[in-house]
């Protein structure tokens, strides 16, 4: 444990100048790699047919192309808003609706076998986008809380050896480069992917509404664990362990739910958005 704490602090101090993207490239690749291990054979062959690459190859494509003026890329594919403070906004994929709206649209368009009568390049583009934003939802710094729940989320500055560090950037760079600088996807998956069968069944079920509650829980815990003004380089061990555990849970949720979404789409089924209302 001690070894991890030291290296973790050293790792944080060597943070390269990264723009505040979502999970940074390495994290996206490894989460997509983990998702790929749990794809059903049907989903795997279909993904290979459409993408002609692995999911981890296209995992951070949306970040690389987010600012191009082609029709396919929408600007804000990371943030999620909570208008009523309780549930995520499920309405539409526009910037206001945020990422969960994108997932609702994609499932409505591809689910129940409807993907078969779409042109293959459109389905291909949906898969590339999903491989990016489904894990993106679980990055703890991606939920914009309303004022009532968390008054000063924007001013939630952290420090690193005295220097200012963005709250968003800290959470983006947690996953992945612990310990050795050059982890490969297999090694990170080995460290993160220790999930019991029961937990997997629990993750890969429920409606999008339940998933939204998981996201909010993660985001709120991330604010409790690393409150405003903490200096990240000198965190005690328990705090570092809590950060690591939260980040691993986010990765597991992202990977298994991405695999679950693809498995259901290519098994001609669909995922309910809301729990069946009376």
């Amino acid at each position, binding site marked *: 444990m001690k070894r991890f704490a030291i290296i973790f602090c050293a790792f944080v101090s060597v943070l390269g100048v990264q723009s505040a993207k979502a999970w940074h490239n390495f994290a996206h690749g490894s989460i997509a790699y983990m998702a790929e291990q749990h794809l059903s054979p049907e989903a795997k062959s279909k993904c290979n047919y459409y993408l002609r690459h692995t999911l981890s190859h296209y995992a951070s494509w949306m970040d690389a192309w987010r600012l*191009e*003026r082609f029709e396919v890329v929408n600007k804000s594919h990371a943030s999620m808003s909570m208008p009523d403070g309780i549930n995520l906004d499920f309405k539409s994929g526009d910037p206001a609706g945020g990422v969960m709206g994108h997932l609702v649209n994609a499932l409505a368009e591809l689910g129940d076998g409807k993907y078969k009568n779409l042109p293959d390049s459109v389905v291909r583009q949906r898969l590339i986008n999903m491989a990016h934003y489904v894990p993106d939802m679980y990055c703890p710094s991606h939920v914009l809380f309303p004022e009532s729940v968390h008054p000063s989320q924007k001013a939630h500055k952290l420090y690193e050896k005295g220097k200012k560090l963005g709250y968003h950037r800290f959470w983006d760079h947690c996953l992945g480069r612990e310990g050795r600088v050059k982890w490969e996807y297999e090694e990170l998956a080995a460290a993160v992917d220790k999930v019991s069968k029961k937990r997997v069944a629990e993750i890969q079920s429920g409606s999008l509404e339940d998933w939204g509650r998981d996201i909010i829980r993660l985001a709120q815990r991330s604010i409790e664990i690393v409150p405003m003004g903490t200096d990240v380089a000198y965190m005690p061990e328990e705090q570092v362990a809590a950060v690591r555990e939260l980040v691993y849970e986010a990765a597991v949720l992202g990977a298994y739910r991405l695999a679950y979404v693809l498995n259901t789409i290519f098994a001609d089924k669909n995922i309910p958005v809301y729990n069946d209302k009376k």
Partner: protein
Amino acid sequence: MLMAGEACAFRGFGHQTIAAIADNHLTENTKREVYSILKADNMVKHANWVTSQRSRAKRVSEWQYATLDANGKSTTTYENDGVVVIEKAAEVLRNRKNESDSLVFASLCTLIEIVGDIHCPGNIHIEGNEATKNFAFTRWNGRKVEEKNRLKSKWREMWHDYTKTHDVFTPQYYAEDLEIILLKKKAEYEKGTPRFWAENVGEDVVWCLKVIYPEAEVTNETVYRYEDINNRCMAKAGYRLAALLNNIFKQ
């Protein structure tokens, strides 16, 4: 009737195509009134009236530009700015009963042409960004490697060339071609006011300038790939013109 409207970025042929797109989406009542004012059975014939008036009044040639302020918002009140001209023309048409016939005809023709003008990325000027006026960059046809095969092209000429290559289409056929994939976005494109339209096209200009900028070395494929933006701008101009006219000539 190919106008020699070389100066404006969409050229005569581009304006005629936008008028053709708008023709398809006018309501019956609007058609009756518009065609009676124009004394013609479609808007395509009068799509270049403003460029024909340039020799008479110099300030008319400024109407094609829309200037946005530094952060891309359209807040100008300069009377010769494209957006202000559209708003004035719409006012005149709204209370057309007590306006002279020639003024109503003139403002209808300016509306048809200037709505198309502000939708051309070559016509949007942004304060503090000299590149939006006009600049040169080199284009390469991808075949011969020597230096002398570089095409010296300009920012406004690029948007100009997209319509020039389809000169052999008729405006109606060009409109039909554009609407194959862009018709389903009509409801989304129709929204907004002229100021919002100029800002919307301003966004495209800002991002295109990150790909094509002064002294950039560009292959032809990059320019080909951005024709998609030109198609969208023309379709937007057509649908928004139709929506504006339907709104003005409502019962």
